[in-house]
């Protein structure tokens, strides 16, 4: 098993997995609170990448500043998205509307609409081609470890994922905001009756989740040097699959599933044509839904 070929493929799979995990964290957090998929998450990811790119071409700040600009852009995008696509469907506060699945699931469509508008707008402004990125900002400098090669971006992405995961766990478990997020995610109506400001909690969740999505966007954009308006689509699908595999509302479950997904994809290239490697994700999705409808790690866990 210590064949350098396998080791290299494992390293690539791990880095792919971390990239999917990066996106899956914010995605899962928002799902956990609202119980609906936010289809515009992929566009928030793209907005983060474009915000970072514009900062780079405007005044060439250090990488850390670029990341914070992307975070801020993501937070703003998350706030706007909640306002435009989700808030209007919560304007009735009677019990029937609050319990209505139809009201909640209408946001599937409104978030999809927002995502289409955002993507088309970016295509009109920037064109659909790859944007030129200052090559000095790319985080793809090779690092050799024995027989395998990784890049500095892998370490940065690993670090950011761990910080996000740790920070989020701390936030959810130890802070008052986290407490209200957990309460809303568990039972929004109950939380409301207990005096928790559910609207504010939902906005905060969107801001945090979208900031994380935007950070993922700029990091992956600089990792591959590929920033373009439809860049959020494929990672969005992978993050969705990871979320379903992880049990829909568990952030750590989604991260572990994302890594499993990345490893499987990179190893699959060894056994079958690369055009089929996208099928791996869909196969996992199907198998999970058939055999583990509660996710790979079971359902007896706290939400979020």
């Amino acid at each position, binding site marked *: 098993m210590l064949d350098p070929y396998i080791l290299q493929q494992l390293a690539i799979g791990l880095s792919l997995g971390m990239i999917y995990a990066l996106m899956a964290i914010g995605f899962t957090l928002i799902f956990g609170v609202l119980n609906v998929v936010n289809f515009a998450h992929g566009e928030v990811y793209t907005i983060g990448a474009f915000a970072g790119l514009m900062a780079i071409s405007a005044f060439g700040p250090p990488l850390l500043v670029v990341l914070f600009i992307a975070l801020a852009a993501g937070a703003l995008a998350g706030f706007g998205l909640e306002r435009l696509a989700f808030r209007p469907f919560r304007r009735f506060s009677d019990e029937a509307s609050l319990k209505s699945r139809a009201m909640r699931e209408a946001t599937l469509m409104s978030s999809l609409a927002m995502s289409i508008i955002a993507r088309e707008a970016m295509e009109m402004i920037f064109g659909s081609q790859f944007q030129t990125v200052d090559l000095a900002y790319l985080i793809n400098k*090779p690092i050799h470890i024995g027989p395998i090669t990784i890049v500095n971006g892998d370490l940065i992405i690993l670090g950011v994922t761990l910080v996000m995961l740790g920070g989020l766990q701390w936030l959810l478990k130890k802070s008052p905001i986290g407490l209200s997020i957990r309460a809303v995610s568990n039972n929004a109506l109950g939380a409301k009756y207990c005096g928790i400001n559910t609207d504010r909690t939902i906005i905060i969740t969107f801001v945090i989740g979208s900031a994380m999505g935007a950070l993922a966007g700029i990091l992956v954009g600089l990792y591959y040097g590929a920033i373009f308006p439809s860049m959020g689509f494929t990672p969005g699908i992978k993050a969705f699959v990871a979320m379903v595999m992880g049990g829909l509302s568990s952030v750590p479950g989604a991260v572990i599933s994302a890594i499993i997904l990345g490893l499987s994809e990179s190893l699959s290239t060894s056994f079958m044509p690369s055009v089929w490697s996208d099928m791996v994700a869909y196969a996992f999705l199907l198998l999970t839904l058939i055999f583990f409808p509660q996710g790979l790690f079971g359902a007896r866990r706290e939400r979020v």
Partner: protein
Amino acid sequence: MKLTRRTALLLAAATALTPVAAFAQDSVKLGYQLPLTGNTAQYGQDFKDAAEIALTKFNASGALPVPVEIIYEDSRSDAKEGVTIARKFVDDKEIVGVLGDFTSTVSMAAAQVYKKAGMVQLSQTASHPDFAKISKWQFRNITTQDQEGAVNAQWMMDKGIKKVAVIAEQTDWGQSVAKGFVEPFEAAGGEVVYTEFFNRGLADFRSIITKLEDQAPDAVYTGFFYEDGAQFLKQMAQLDAAIPVYSTSAAYNDQLIELAGDAAEGLLLTATFLPTRMDANVQEFVTEWDKTHDHAPGQFPAQAYDAVNIMLAAVVKAYPDLTRDSLRDAVAATTDFPGVTGNTTFDENGEPLKELTKASVVGGMFVEVE
């Protein structure tokens, strides 16, 4: 007569056009169908600009006693629109020949009309293998992958490369890249150790590159456009895969170098046009082009420039007995036409036999390899 706005406009147009029409009574008319709006408009606009450069030069040269006119129609890269335009051109008895369209799909749809009516159609870019085979009326001014593959195979053979991996995108075009190379290469005694197709827009090539390195080929032959090309080359550099990469004219784009930076250094490819080539006609075209554009012309406008010139040369040859039939025969008889994309001769199917230029990326620029 009630003077509506439309009649007023018509009258105005008629007055404005009368002197021109009187002057151009004996002008030769050609049609050009190309996308001027829609999402391939940037290509069509370039074709039109290149065609105008060629036409202005031709009319100024006095090679014909009458001027030549080109009528442009916007096909929006839509096959239905292409057919409508073709009918319009065919019905206009003054039009003797047609250029275009841009994509193979639209060109082939329109070709059915031209085939039936008997009008010569010369496309600058339709590269589908079946296009030129539709009838004796279809010609194209772009090389097919069979030609590029054969030149690349010979190029590698000359360098003593025997083991090659082939990577191409999973499309009809990508398949034709692989097939066009593998057949002549194996016939010449080479060995293809690994073939892989990828989905266009694949973000991560590293698994493929690792697998490719494992097969230890002497070179990689690739079929990709510049965006995928830039990703592939960057990740090759990232993984320190020191294997020479050969590619086709589809990767020939300055954007490739801009996106891949140093990783593009040493890329080898075949192309039909290099704006840096010092030949007089190339420099003449590039100078004219630069007057109205802030970037050097790519391969596509150069193809259009040559297509128009080939058509004009055929008009001169057929004149004064200029009919749709005589023009077709004159186009078919084109031999060694000295264009900016190399010398062109049409074979019996209307395929151009061109000499391809070999180029390489050196110091952040495409330069010709002697």
